[in-house]
């Protein structure tokens, strides 16, 4: 291709490859723990079976076809979907709250991008070796060894990506059946599209794009920085200690012990570069707080390892705040954190209350508007309504349909005045209301439909407001 010719102007910066080195330490262990837990939940949850009187036996199932989300013992109906808004609000507020206090904790420990990149790096290391080996392999000519190693890496990546996409798809159908259908070519089209799309995105994001996702694509990375202040916990290099008066310096014969170094005004940083080598985004934490830093804390582990081996105290790179680095004390009890905390608490309480008080029975009344009313042979006026009745419990309920609020009105629901609602099922019933209004009464009158359970008294009566329209009124 012509682009290999000298000259064509490059419109974007080529990615500088990052070869993160492995590191051991407390934060690495914590991150492996979180990763194991998160992967365990994500990959195993669709396979967890659950006993229900009515509905599928899958613990977590997002059933679009029947418009129900099954979450263990909770069944979320279409009408309850505002809970999703509540959940998203809580997620956003939690992000604000945590970021205000402890910085980009989400990025470093919980973000899918971080978790999947970690696994991909693990695979890469397993097949190709650690940082130096990988760099050497990349520079090497394409020998059989390189082809096998590179090919194996990408195949394993694709496998992880595929299973990630497949698992996501399995949440939307009965997992064992859907999996068999998927491989026998009988699954619905969206199952293939979703799985293959997520396979592609996982492979590209975690395998090829990696830190570029955080730096260039992710909006959270940018707006989390807005919530930072001088008190926010950040992963930072203690420049005062590390640089001393004369700057950092490698260990040499004359600069071996701390006493020697301090006498020469040299800081504690021995410029070994370990913190830079382990960084998954390829930055140097010693340059200060940077937008690329996802607060993964691996540089802390790296520096601690070095300090331990030298017998010096840990914390040259540590969780601190800008204020503390400048010698002050940071306080986390501030209007901002208290405010976020209170709003977060309110949102959680609100959602939990709402979920806990899910109505077992629901009634929605829709007016038939065409025609809005009809005159009957005896001069009365008739309005029609469609009643949408939903039974959200696991037992059948027999209910009676009544009305009140219009003196002398007649309710006609055909032969369905008493109707049995199947468990977890909804039904629509047409109700006609006939009423003789006085001559002077025109316009609209409000009244109520009542749905009265005839057994299972613990479920109370529910009512739905409706309007009766008369000819000649203002509508």
């Amino acid at each position, binding site marked *: *291709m*012509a*682009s290999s*010719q*000298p*000259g*064509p*102007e*490059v*419109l*974007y*910066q080529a990615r500088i490859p990052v070869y993160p080195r492995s590191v051991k330490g407390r934060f690495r262990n914590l991150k492996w723990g979180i990763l194991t837990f998160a992967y365990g939940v994500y990959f195993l949850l669709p396979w967890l079976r659950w006993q229900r009187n009515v509905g599928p036996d899958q613990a977590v199932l997002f059933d679009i076809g029947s418009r129900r989300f099954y979450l263990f013992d909770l069944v979320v109906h279409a009408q309850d979907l505002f809970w999703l808004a509540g959940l998203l609000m809580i997620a956003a507020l939690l992000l604000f709250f945590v970021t205000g206090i402890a910085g980009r904790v989400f990025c470093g420990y919980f973000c899918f991008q971080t978790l999947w990149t970690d696994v991909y790096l693990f695979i890469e290391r397993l097949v190709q070796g650690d940082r130096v080996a990988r760099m050497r392999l990349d520079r090497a000519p394409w020998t059989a060894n390189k082809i096998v190693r590179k090919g194996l890496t990408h195949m394993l990546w694709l496998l992880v990506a595929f299973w990630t996409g497949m698992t996501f798809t399995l949440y939307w159908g009965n997992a064992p059946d859907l999996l068999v259908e998927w491989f026998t070519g009988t699954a619905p089209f969206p199952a293939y599209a979703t799985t293959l799309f997520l396979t592609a995105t996982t492979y590209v994001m975690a395998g090829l794009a990696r830190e570029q996702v955080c730096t260039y694509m992710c909006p959270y990375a940018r707006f989390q920085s807005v919530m930072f202040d001088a008190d926010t916990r950040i992963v930072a290099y203690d420049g005062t200690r590390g640089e001393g008066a004369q700057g950092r310096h490698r260990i040499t014969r004359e600069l071996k012990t701390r006493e020697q170094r301090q006498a020469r005004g040299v800081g504690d940083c021995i410029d070994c570069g370990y913190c830079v080598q382990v960084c998954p985004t390829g930055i140097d934490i010693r340059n200060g707080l940077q937008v690329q830093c996802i607060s993964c804390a691996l540089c802390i582990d790296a520096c601690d390892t070095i300090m331990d081996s030298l017998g010096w105290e840990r914390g040259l790179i540590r969780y601190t705040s800008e204020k503390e680095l400048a010698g002050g004390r940071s306080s986390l009890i501030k209007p901002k954190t208290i405010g976020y905390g209170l709003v977060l608490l309110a949102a959680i309480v609100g959602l939990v209350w709402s979920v806990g008080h899910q109505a077992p029975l629901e009634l929605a009344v829709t007016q*038939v*508007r*065409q*025609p809005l009313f*009809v*005159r*009957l*042979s*005896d*001069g009365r006026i*008739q309005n*029609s309504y*469609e009643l949408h009745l939903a039974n959200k419990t696991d037992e059948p309920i027999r209910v009676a349909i009544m009305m009140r609020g219009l003196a002398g009105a007649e309710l*006609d629901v*055909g*032969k*369905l005045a008493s*109707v*049995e609602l199947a468990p977890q099922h909804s*039904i*629509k*019933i*047409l109700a*006609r209301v006939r009423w003789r209004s006085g001559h002077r009464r025109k316009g609209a009158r409000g009244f109520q439909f009542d749905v009265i359970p005839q057994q299972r008294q613990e479920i109370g009566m529910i009512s739905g407001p409706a309007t009766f329209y008369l000819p000649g009124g203002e509508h």
Partner: protein
Amino acid sequence: MSEAKGKTQGTVQTTGHAWDGDLQEFNNPLPNWWLWSFYGTVLFAVVYWIFYPAWPVGTGYTTGIMNDITFVDSQGNEKTTHWNTRALLLKDLQEGKEALLTKEYMDRIADAGYAEILGDAEMMAFTRSFAKGLFGDNCAPCHGAGGAGVMGLFPNLADDDWLWGGAVGEIEATIADGRYGFMPPFRDALDEQQIDDVASYVLSLSGHEVDTASAARGKAVFQSDTGGCYYCHTKAGTGLKSQGAANLTDQIWTIADVPGAESFEEKKEVVKQVVSNGVERRMPAWSGRLSPAQIKLLTVYVHELGGGQ
């Protein structure tokens, strides 16, 4: 991103041609991703030609090798055809998930009696949603989307007045076989005064206050062979269902817009118009166009609109 300067350009390639001595053109090749995407589309097109209908050949076209859509056409013959979206749609309308679900309900409805359907909330809900489409396609052009009809032209199906009977059997007969409603014009048979008197009497039947003398004269015309109105409307004025004759004693008017008239004179005028000009209305038969199950669904739907009988 804008830091690309410096690390890229060597000498810029030109097309090697110079105009006017020094005017040259840069050779900026296409970006690789663009070029390979283009090659990809070319490859895609070739694969497409092989599998799908593509090239016009004479009066026909190449059909592609995917001759695998089997469906039942409107004549009931099984056909296998090359890939095309119309056949896919037909197939989906017959074998799709929703089609099968609809069929299951249709079979239940076909097997059930009217009493069973009316007492089953599930079947009623299906009827309402499915027959709404049937009604919209076949009935709404005259009777309106909600069945309210048009005064003077098409009867209101949402009220409780049934010209030809409001029991399910009668509604079914009306839909299946159609109806022909006829009232002769009386402008030649009766004189001006007699028509005026008959109008007074007709209005008195539904409780309007009228000139009693005129109404008495009108009654004589109505109840005797002079007018012969009672042949169809009966002596009580309640109407013969077998003739589709209107009940004149109730508050519902389907031809003369009495409720819409402001004054008594106007009310009388609209009634006189009907007596003078007569009525001729025809509803076509639907038994040839709709299946028995569809007529059953429409029957239940119409029955439910006004509450039925």
